[in-house]
């Protein structure tokens, strides 16, 4: 009976896409079929991109609540269940951006494009099955670095060359602290 008002403090999915509607990262926390995935991605981009600035960061889509936030050129967009706390989800997004920032140092969209696997690793440390696993910035970094120290120093930040030649929005830091 309690199941009707079930709290599953859980994201259904997390999408990162650019202002041009290019998907940059996708994570599905509940099993979703390929078709459904494509539909959600399409719908999210269509719903979120036309939103005016200074409107609500929450949207209703089917039976889901959509929480999105724009950081520079990138939109972070999460789907959660109706009873969840939208404000909290917004902070989950923000915390993720902070973590990316901490790891990449002034993270920008290009970092995520070229190092998307790292972005996924950080996400995996931060959220486990859609639940917030690690809330401390410090700890996520430690476990990331642990893994990184093992990594040969190849192709580290290979986008940096682009950064030199471009002073464009893709390299605008996602968040300014």
């Amino acid at each position: 009976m309690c199941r009707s008002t079930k709290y599953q403090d859980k994201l259904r999915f997390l999408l990162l896409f650019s202002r041009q509607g290019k998907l940059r990262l996708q994570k599905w926390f509940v099993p979703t079929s390929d078709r459904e995935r494509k539909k959600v991605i399409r719908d999210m981009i269509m719903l979120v991109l036309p939103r005016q600035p200074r409107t609500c960061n929450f949207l209703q889509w089917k039976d889901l609540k959509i929480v999105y936030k724009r950081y520079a050129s990138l939109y972070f967009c999460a789907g959660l269940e109706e009873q969840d706390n939208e404000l909290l989800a917004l902070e989950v997004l923000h915390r993720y951006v902070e973590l990316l920032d901490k790891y990449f140092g002034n993270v920008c969209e290009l970092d995520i494009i070229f190092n998307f696997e790292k972005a996924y690793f950080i996400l995996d440390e931060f959220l486990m099955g859609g639940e917030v696993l690690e809330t401390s910035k410090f700890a996520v970094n430690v476990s990331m670095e642990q893994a990184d120290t093992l990594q040969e120093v190849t192709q580290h930040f290979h986008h940096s060359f682009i950064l030199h030649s471009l002073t464009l929005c893709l390299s605008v830091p996602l968040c300014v602290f």
Partner: protein
Amino acid sequence: MSDVVEKTLTALPSLLSLDSQPGSAKLSSNSKLGNLIRGITELTSKHEEEKLIQRELLLIKEQVSSPNTTMRQMKELMVRAIYCEMLGYGVSFSYIHAIKLAQQGNVLEKRVGYLAVSLFLNESHELLLLLVNTVLKDLQSTNLIEVCMALTVVSQMFPKDMIPAILPLVEEKLNHPKEIIRRKAVLALYKFYLIAPNQVQHIHNKFRKALCDKDPGVMSASLHIYLQLIQENPEGYKDLAPSFVTILKQVVGGKLPMDFNYHSVPAPWLQIHLLRILSFLGKNDQSTSEIMYEILDESLRRAEMNHNITYAILYECVKCIYTIHPKSDLLEKAAKCIGNFVLSPKINLKYLGLKALTYVVQQDPKLALQHQMTIIECLDHPDLIIKRETLELLFRITNDQNVTVIVEKMLDFLRISEDDHTTIDLVGKVAELAEKYAPDNEWFIDTMNTVFSLGGDLLQPDIPNSFLKLLSEGFDSVEEDKKLRLFAVNSYISLLQRDASKLPQRFLQVICWVLGEYSHLREDLEPDVIVRLLAKLLDMKSSSSETKCWVLMAMTKLCPGGAALALVHNVSETYSSSLDTMLRQRAQELEILSQDSELQAKVLPRSASMEPVEVDSSLSFLDGFVSEALAAGAAPYKPPHQRQEELSRSKALNLEPYGLSLPISMSSCSITDRQSPTLLSISSGLSGDSTDFSHKGSSTVLKLDGVKRLWGRDGYLAQKEPTEEAPRIEAASPVRSADQLGNNNSQTPTPTPTPECDQEKQQLASSLFVGLASQSSICLMGKSDQPSQRFRRKTKASGSSEQITNPLVFPSDGSDNLLYKNLLDSPDLDGSPPEQTPGLDAPNGACDAEEESTDADMKEIKTPPIRDEHVTAEASPHHDPDRSKDPSLTSHLPAELSALPHSKTTTLFSKQNLDVSACHVQKEDSVVLVVFISNCSDSFLQQIRLQVDSEELEVSCVSDSPSEELKSHSVAVCQYFLTVKRPSVHFDLSATVSWQPPAGSPLTTQFSYRLPLTAFIRALRLSTEEYGAKWLAFSHDTKQNLTLIQGGRDPLAATLDVLKRKLQLHVVEVIGVEAIVACCLQQDQPCLMHCRMHAGMLAVWLRSPVPDLPDCLLYCCQRALQEL
């Protein structure tokens, strides 16, 4: 800003292409992914991108399958494959390689492999099985990173069936020295709990250990599990409430390490988890709530309004305060807090404030009154989501006084909404409000018209259904009914006279039905006119064939004369050659009935539209036809599930049997349901009868249970508004809200409205919030779970709650129950013990108890026991003592048990002047063993002790061991509650009695008593639907053929009768040669039985959630049938 972006983007390809010039050649060769991404950016069309990616994929495919590819290259390839997949291209060829990479790579390669697997595969993907071994290996690795990776992937996706394989290893990790491993292990177990709760049941105590972990991270991870567990069973964790409160206190007090701070708020996620847990624990529980008040107060106080995250915490806090047992000053603070949310200029907070308000107004409608001006502003907010949320709030505060305004607002929103989901949802809400609170006929019909036209064909089908039901059933006053119907007819005629082609199909169908039924109420209008209007619908291109059927049916009912008859004839001719069978059938009916008005009047009696039709769901009227067909050699009909069952018997797989069964569930068919009558006619295969039947179905009201009825008899009486009240509120509320605004003006830069606009809003406010003040007397302290009592009031009692539950009388523990004055006054004055029949001593007697406790005894005793029995015994003092003993001992039964069925009293042993007998009494919910210890001697017996034990039964003593001493010729009565630990065919009780005769040493004797399973079986009353649902849910089953009781006309009925009588089974339904039967073992352990007559045998199939129960019950059935 956006300009800059556009410019840079157009510049991007050229800039990127610079890099492929010689200077950056080194870099691009280094990074193939870089190349790919650059390549894509350069392209201008989707088509080119597709070509490029296809080329890339071919390349990747070639390389991954090459044996020379190193793992390092593989990792790089995998990253590229992930990228392509993100762009929406299929990379299924690489799945297996991702698994290989996770298996064989070094740590870093493995990591990418796991990532690829988790991104590519679904939980149910079969390839995941190949990952199990890798995970197993990595869980045992000494490398922490490998363990971490394995745990991460496990918590993301793992085949459910494989959980047992890794569970011990994950469990082990709970004791790992590294906290990050412990934390991940806890979350992995949480994941297991979500997908397969019974697999982790045994480690619940380990969760407690995790809760007490010294690392706050592990503790906070364990809260995920606790939140889930407590949500499912709050009662089981009440003892933890103080601990959770203490943890929250520490967190709020800033006792956690700084690491856990988020924007200087201590562990917000943890706080929110705890608040949610507390709200579950405190719900409807005053004493638990009381220990939380202090910390909730502190949380409210500590949370400074400076950051989103504190608002998130406050929101949870407010929700918690309104969920647990209320405390007035906390409620006040929470209300103020909501005020801050709602009045905030930040739109996100406003939204959350509205959401909180929506949650809270169910308990305290007054709160909405306080914020009425804000709510009205939100109603005009440019952001639709705010508007939508406001409507949600208004929906909760609707009453019969403000319904028109609120519904108008909702309809306004519906007109601009483009989202299907929102439309469906809102339309349903409007219809609900309209039915509940409609002030008058015109408004109701108009609103429903708008609902039908706006909702279009997205509408849930129950909305038109209940609308038509309402029209046809009517209310108390015939006059009122007539007015409503007439109004509907008028409104529909005028709709049809305009352009009907824009109307949705569903609406047209409603119109057809209403015109067919009630247009005769318009006496001034010839049926011809209506028929012409309807005929126009047939010619419309947009009309679906379903709608056309409705049109034809309406025409059939109208029975026109004169000119329209030719038209009707034309129509029926046109459609009687239609390809649609339904349409053809309707056309035929129309043809025949329009020519024979006598028949038409008989088939479609006008006045009978309100009389319920008895539906013969067993289709017994077809019996003759069926037997004829059978005699002619037709194969007997088998319902689908039986066919399936037989099919599955021949093959190996057992398919779900009840998925399609119970074919005709009448409660799901409704007046407007075009399908059901046809289904019936198809399954019966007899069209003549069924057309008749379907007519009845459409023109009159089926007697249906389970269809919700919202429109109460008093729906129309609400017109008399409490006029004295309204003005008072109108006067009071704006002032109040102005106050409110004034108080908070400092922080709300709300645009000051112009005076007229202001007035308008206040007017709106008074119309929106009217009636709330009077309603607000709903006391907070005694808040009920039902949010709105008004809704309840109007529902008609369905009269099906005839079930009378016997109040359970628990034996009072007064000593008079323990020791009964010996009513027998044993006639054997010589004091010698009653003679024993040989073979009645202990061991054999036990057997007797079982065998003789058939229902014959039970029934006999169901009549109140004859109190005078002992008189007869007295009157014939030289009666056989064994015979007289039974009824007389029965009279010693405690009063509250004496009226219940009990078994024959059996003498268990008789020795040394002490006589021990026993019987068991079947109470509604339990079985009570009653032991009679009679002292047959002339002297006192002392220190009598009785102990009863059993392996299969839980024995709890109701009345304690008999007193220390037993007077001569008196009887001591002991009662024991018996509950079944695990099912068995018989339950053996072993007992020890010890006593001390006046002269001599203490004596001890053992004896045993045996109860049959049937003593614990009770009838389980449920409906066929419930049965069907349960059947699928139960896992333990058994099947066997039993002998049918032959003789008599109906062997199935006879057999069922015996089972019903002897085992107290409840026959749920008999469908032809099949029957479904239900019973339960002491109330909470159901067992379902499905019987089918087959080849002279009764094939039974039992299912239960309790292991062994089906087998044991089957044995009992066998015995019961053999004993005849």
